[in-house]
């Protein structure tokens, strides 16, 4: 159970990764490779996220929001501020989850299955399409100006919980990450640049 939770946490992180990245678009011979390059180019900074979880059990979606921070090459924070504060930090392969009550620290290398997610993030950042394709089948649609990247898990165990991940972006910037679960519930995270910037 803990392991599955973790996988989900990391899945969320994957979304963020692209989110805080890229600013400019390239015209011309656009494709997966050029998107990767774009994501790689300027992928540091802060962003604001809003997340909605659509859970069939509940009458209305659960909302949360907070801030994302990425410092290349391997420091990522997801700082949820509302409704309950929680800080997720991924740093050099160590994942720390800190809430008001407890703090968990995990070594990703202890969770080989989970680290597959992280490797794909690193692969994305490094423009290493191969690393990403180890875990997912990738489908890219749209244009460089407005694109949609769909990730379908290859491993059966993973596809039992995750149906697909849909990442939408404008130019080199990730705008939303949607995770569709196998049971039909889904979460949508939208990402905006910080107001001050």
């Amino acid at each position, binding site marked *: *159970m803990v392991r599955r939770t973790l996988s989900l946490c990391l899945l969320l992180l994957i979304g963020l990764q692209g989110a805080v990245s890229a600013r400019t678009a390239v015209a011309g011979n656009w494709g997966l490779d050029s998107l990767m390059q774009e994501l790689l180019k300027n992928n540091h900074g802060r962003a604001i996220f809003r997340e909605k979880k659509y859970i069939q059990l509940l009458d209305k979606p659960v909302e949360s929001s907070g801030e994302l921070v990425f410092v290349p090459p391997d420091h990522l924070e997801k700082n949820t501020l509302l409704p309950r504060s929680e800080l997720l930090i991924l740093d050099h392969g160590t994942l720390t989850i800190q809430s008001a009550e407890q703090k968990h620290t995990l070594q990703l290398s*202890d969770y*080989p299955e989970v680290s597959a997610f992280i490797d794909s993030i690193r692969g994305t950042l490094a423009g290493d399409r191969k690393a990403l394709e180890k875990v997912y089948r990738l489908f890219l649609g749209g244009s460089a100006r407005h694109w949609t990247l769909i990730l379908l898990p290859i491993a059966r165990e993973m596809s039992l919980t995750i149906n697909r991940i849909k990442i939408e972006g404008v130019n080199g910037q990730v705008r939303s990450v949607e995770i569709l679960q196998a049971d039909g519930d889904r979460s949508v995270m939208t990402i905006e640049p910080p107001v001050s910037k």
Partner: protein
Amino acid sequence: MRYPEGEYRIVITIWVLFVLSCAWLTGRANYTADLSAFLPSAPTQEQRLLVDLLRDGMVSRLILVGIEGADSETRAFLSKGIAGELRNNPAFSYINNGEVSSQQKDREFIFNNRYLLSPKVDSQLFSVAGLHSSVSKSLEGLSSSAGLFLKTLLPRDPTGEMNVLLAGFNSQHIPPTLHGAWASRDSQRALLLFWTRVPVSDIDGQQQAITTIQQAFENVLSKGKADGIIKGNRPRLLITGPGVFSVKARDTIRNEATRLSIISSVMIVALLLVIYRSLTVLMLGLLPVLSGALAGIAAVSLGFGMVHGITLGFGTTLIGESVDYSIYRFLQSGRGENWVEKFWPTVRLGVFTSVSGFASLAFSGFPGLAQLGLYSIVGLLTAATVTRFVLPAKGSFEFAIRDLSPVGRRLQRLYQPAHYLIWPLALLLLLSCALIYRHADTLWNRDISALSPVSPGDQVLDAGLRADIGAPDVRYLAVVKAMDAESALVAAEKLGARLHTLVDKGVLAGFETPARFLPSRATQMIRLESLPTRDILEERLQQALKQLPVQAERFSPFVSDIEAVRNRGPLQRSDLDGTSFGLSLDGLLVRQGAEWLALLPLMAPSEGPFANSIDATRIRAELADDHDLSGALIVDIKKEADQLYGSYLREAIFLSALGLLIIVIVLLAALRSLTRVARVLAPLLLAVIVVIGGFIMAGHQLTMLHLIGLLLIVAVGSNYSLFFDKQSMQGDQAMLSRTLASLLFANMTTVTGFGLLAFSKVPVLQSIGITVGPGAILALVFSAILAQHRPA
């Protein structure tokens, strides 16, 4: 002195009866190779607990298994295959290899019993306000990164008990998983844990469990090969753990007891044949040895109720030593001389000094060492008595002994210039003293593992697998006692509440308690009574959820679960069967004699003002005002273990000193001259010093077993120096050559006996052998040199 015919017949009859009854006792004796005889019997309450845990605690039932070689998929395949094959095997109470199925029962147990296990459960929790607040908190939790996981539990567990319980139950470190099974951090080994149903003291049962694991490995391996799943390099199976050690040790001891006895008997018989060149004399010479050995075993069996294999292995030294008496008897008797009159007093004195030395073993706190002591004392006394009274005097019986006077004369010629050796000897002594002085600090091995009967290679493998599994070393324990299991659990709960306040203060990082896995019946009843009936709960839920975005109907699984728990009643110990918590509970709730102990391992904080240590006095002070808890023990296991070893080293030093003192008193009483006692002891103490110097040169640290060996050098060597002392008092040259020859042969047999032990794989035997073997030779040589140098 010669007996009248009739008297001798009576002596023979008594002896035959004695030997027969000893043989009968020997035949009926229980033989064991259980290593716990060499675990000390502990003096303090804390140490007794420690030793009992080592002997029979849950940790002692653990078998750690590693699979090496081949590739990681193959290793995981084997791990799952072995676990699958053995999961329902009655030899094991629990198997864990990290597979989801290993933990399934655990999770089901926590989930099904969450309302009995959770400390949050009280009537407040099930009030309208309580339900409202806990459900809103759970809904809030859905927004967290774990939200998508938590949602699946929500309909059955809206108050979030599972989350609270999991945090506590999964506090232990878990190894990483690779291809669905545990693997070492470097991914080079697959890891499995087995708990045997039988205790570690049941060596046959342990042996069977190990064989079962090995067979399962072979089965899965050949199945995998047949199906084409496993190709290439053959993987290796590594097995370790207390049970594995005791099986190995038993095999070693069994082999060695037989092997050592046979080799030493053959060598000594061969030696005697060369010396005597007469089968009759050989047979006569062996009579005291056999009588002594039988009497020794019979005495141990009577005194201890069982005979340890190591005692039998030690028997070789008895063979080597007791055969000396007949050598003296046969070789020292000259024509027409009365051996009994002339030599017996010296031999008898030698027997008494030897016995004084072994007596220090007999009082040791290690039951195993005490056996060796008793065995040797009874054996030596019997052998000497048989030599003196049963062996026929020369002339009363027709037998011929090879004329050894040429050997004696040659020895005598060699011996003449021995006094020149006094200078090299002085140099050797000086060198040894210098070495001892320089290395005084590192002379003793103060590590308790020095006494461990486990070979260093096996210790390394064990430490490696343990590190892979990440089993944390428990260093501190809080212990409460009670008359029954329920009271012990109640006490553990009470103690736990106090420890919580210490955790809040930062004195402790945390603690484990048996009540986590099985709350006391009293606590469970309180929790049960706080659970509302179906109607009341449904009504309260309706009210509690009014302001929340979820319909009460969604929680009907929760309502049914509560009703099921109410109907089922409190948890029993048997409900934990098949879960890992059953084992945890058995490890923490222990029966000791008529009492029950609850053990609460304490975790020291890793940071802050109380980092890395636990102040036992502070904790005791915290508990002092509560009458029920004031008897709680706070045990620092490492400190107790070190102290335990320290106290045994002190005991060994004390007993050795006492043994030496008794030897001095015996010698003083017999020789009635301080100078003579000093003369007798000087070469022996020299031998001791030089042997210690030798150990330092060889880079060998001493343990208490070596110390005992050093005392035995004095005890055994005194026989030689006593003869030289007697010689110098009487100055008979004809007698000298005979004495020299008999001493040389007697020394050869003794050195054979002890020397063989030096090659033993059993540390107890090896340490004593490696000390006494060279020591006995040095004692003879030094006695000869010093005797020659004596002013006439």
